[in-house]
């Protein structure tokens, strides 16, 4: 059945999808190119009217080997690793298209803000899926040696302002066994996590109220939070120095071509290939068709729309053609409050049983925190307006119950950002699509994209360049699981 198709799609890709580009070669549409050339010569010849050729320097190039849709942390990470892992210097031409280069949180209708800017910036290794733990470990290694990876001559060093304060996960009676198993798995992978009983917790952090807590897991090292903005800027500077082109624009359509193929068992299947990407310039109607060999969908919350443009999901439901990319934008709030009697300098990133999380911010008794709502309580994602009642009703009661000294807190600011929420199993999608053969995904990480970005970028770059995952095996994250119905559930989602 279609399972064989999927294997075909991946297997044949392994041999001829290795993208070692060679310059030159024939392009399609030879006749149009010849007539364009003839027109240009006619302009220059004496006796004809001199019409200046149209200045297109502000548009993206007409050709690029890889087009990355989305210039946030995931898109830039993929661009960085593509240029780092290429065989020869300058072998791959990469173009990154981003809608909003300022990355600020715009409080407008239909705001297309990136999710990297407003993020809380935490990184921890306490996951239930082993690949997530490996991704986190690689990411923390990357962040630690950030100035080796992102060193640019004459540029200042990247200062991530990393707080190595660790992460504390609390579990109730019914989740205690799962937590213990997870911690065992994490320690096997190499994370430095320890389990604490409620008494030990009370001793170590006297400001916690341990009522309802049966077990807690605490990361001793390699966990904490950092400044996402400086990482983004550092990555941008480095990829620009490596020769990646960054353009501000919007991808409006894909020009695809399809071909009929046959599986060994004789079934017909239609494989599509993206030939051109139409990039529309900001605030104008101009667009540039960019010919490309591979497209990487790293558009974050908007990845679902980009996938629909490529024809993913247009078919009968229940078939492979009809399986949509289940990533949609979900609004999440982050609140900043001030509490002079709050927990001290040793406070880790605390994630409570109820789903509320908070961490310290700076030296001045400020704290950042948020809450992941249940499905019924989801705020409306059409804009980035903050609902202040949300904090009052949903976050504050749980905070006070866990940390009694937060009773006197005062909210200073709040902002909102989008999660690229995967409605299927809240875990990311990585790798190629089985039918649209040159679209690769790097999205859907539902709030963990920032901390896993270096690892994901490397995995996608390996898939594009070598056709397989070399370092971390991300095959559980492939697109095909949406069709096969295999959920990769993550226990704790912040």
């Amino acid at each position: 059945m279609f399972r064989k198709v999927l294997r075909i799609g991946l297997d044949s890709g392994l041999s001829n999808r290795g993208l070692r580009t060679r310059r030159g070669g024939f392009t399609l549409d030879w006749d149009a190119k010849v007539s364009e050339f003839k027109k240009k010569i006619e302009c220059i010849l004496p006796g004809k009217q001199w019409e200046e050729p149209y200045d297109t320097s502000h548009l993206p190039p007409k050709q690029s080997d890889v087009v990355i849709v989305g210039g946030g942390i995931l898109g830039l990470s993929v661009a960085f690793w593509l240029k780092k892992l290429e065989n020869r210097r300058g072998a791959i031409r990469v173009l990154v298209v981003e809608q909003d280069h300022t990355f600020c949180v715009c409080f407008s209708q239909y705001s297309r803000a990136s999710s990297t800017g407003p993020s809380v910036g935490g990184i921890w290794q306490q996951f239930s899926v082993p690949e997530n733990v490996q991704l986190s470990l690689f990411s923390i290694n990357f962040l630690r040696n950030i100035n080796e990876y992102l060193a640019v001559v004459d540029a200042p060093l990247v200062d991530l302002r990393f707080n190595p304060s660790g992460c504390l996960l609390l579990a109730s009676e019914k989740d205690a066994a799962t937590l213990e198993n997870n911690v065992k798995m994490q320690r096997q992978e190499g994370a430095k996590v320890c389990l604490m009983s409620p008494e030990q917790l009370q001793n170590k952090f006297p400001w916690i109220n341990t009522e309802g807590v049966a077990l807690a897991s605490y990361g001793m090292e390699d966990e904490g939070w950092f400044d996402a903005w400086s990482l983004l800027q550092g990555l941008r500077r480095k990829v620009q120095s490596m020769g990646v082109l960054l353009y501000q624009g919007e991808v409006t359509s894909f020009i695809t071509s399809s071909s009929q193929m046959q599986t060994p068992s004789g079934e017909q299947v239609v494989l599509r290939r993206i030939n051109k990407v139409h990039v529309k310039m900001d605030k104008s109607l101009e667009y540039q068709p960019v010919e490309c060999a591979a497209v990487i969908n790293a558009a974050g919350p908007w990845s679902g729309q980009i996938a629909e443009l490529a024809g993913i999901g247009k078919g009968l439901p229940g078939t492979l053609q009809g399986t949509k990319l289940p990533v949609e934008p979900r609004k999440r709030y982050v609140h900043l409050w001030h509490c002079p009697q709050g927990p001290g300098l040793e406070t880790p990133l605390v994630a409570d049983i109820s789903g509320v999380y908070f961490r310290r911010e700076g030296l001045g008794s400020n704290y950042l925190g948020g809450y992941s709502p249940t499905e019924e309580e989801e705020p409306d994602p059409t804009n980035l307006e903050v609902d202040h009642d949300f904090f009052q009703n949903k976050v504050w009661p749980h905070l006070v119950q866990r940390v009694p000294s937060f009773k006197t807190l005062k909210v200073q600011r709040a902002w909102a950002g989008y999660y690229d929420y995967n409605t299927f199993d809240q875990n990311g999608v990585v790798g190629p699509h089985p039918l649209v053969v040159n679209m690769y995904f790097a999205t859907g990480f539902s709030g963990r994209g920032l901390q896993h970005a270096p690892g994901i970028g490397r995995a996608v770059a390996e898939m594009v360049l070598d056709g397989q995952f070399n370092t971390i095996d991300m095959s559980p994250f492939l697109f095909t699981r949406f069709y096969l119905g295999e959920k990769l559930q993550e226990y704790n989602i912040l």
Partner: protein
Amino acid sequence: MGFLRLGAREWNGRARGIRSMSEPVTPDSSRKKRTLLQFLSDYFHDIHALREYLLRKQILKGNRKNRSFADIQEKYGPYVTGALFILKQGGAVKYDSCHERMFQNKEWIRPNEHGHFPTEFLEFRKVPVEAVDASGCAINYQGMSNLPVPLKELRFLSLQRCPNVDDWCLSRLYLLADSLQELSLAGCPQVSERGLACLHHLQSLRRLDISDLPAVSHPGLTQILVEEMLPHCEVLGTDWAQGLKLEPDQQPQNTPAVSP
């Protein structure tokens, strides 16, 4: 040339003043003059590639000094590994004084000005190292794995003026939670208050020196918070009144008399 470049880094002094490492030497060149190499690299890709290569080599050199001593650890045991690593970097070690009958002098073992050090300690595989003075050494996070991991009974650690010790290194110190009693971080240019926050694991600490840390943004406030975090520890730092503004009618001699 090597030590001159190190000199430029120390002169700049500010935490973020560790400028581009492939620049030739003067304290002002980063700000005012452009060198010939910089000028040429704007015009020629080859020179640009050369500068990138030099930058990478600089980084690798730093890493080589801090490589892991795993093979020595297998042969000689953890204490000798740690001691050897410190002595090679230019620091000093002191052994546990209750075993002093094995030693003629119960003093610090230090390398002399040529970098040679006595090798008697190679015999003492079972003797725990008590104190390490790594002032001014080029130890970084990689090298820290050679330090707290093998040396479990370390009581005194001095990391004064180490240019590469940063917040990441401090997060490794939790392994010494049971034994470490004195820690000195004075003068480290890359340690900030974020690294100091993870010292809360060291509950046996009795003396902590955090004076003269240029990367800490509010030294007085940080000291108060650290004192709250480690109630049994004596924290030596800057005068906590530093940063408080004098009232206009007060004379400069009347600085607040309460100081640790």
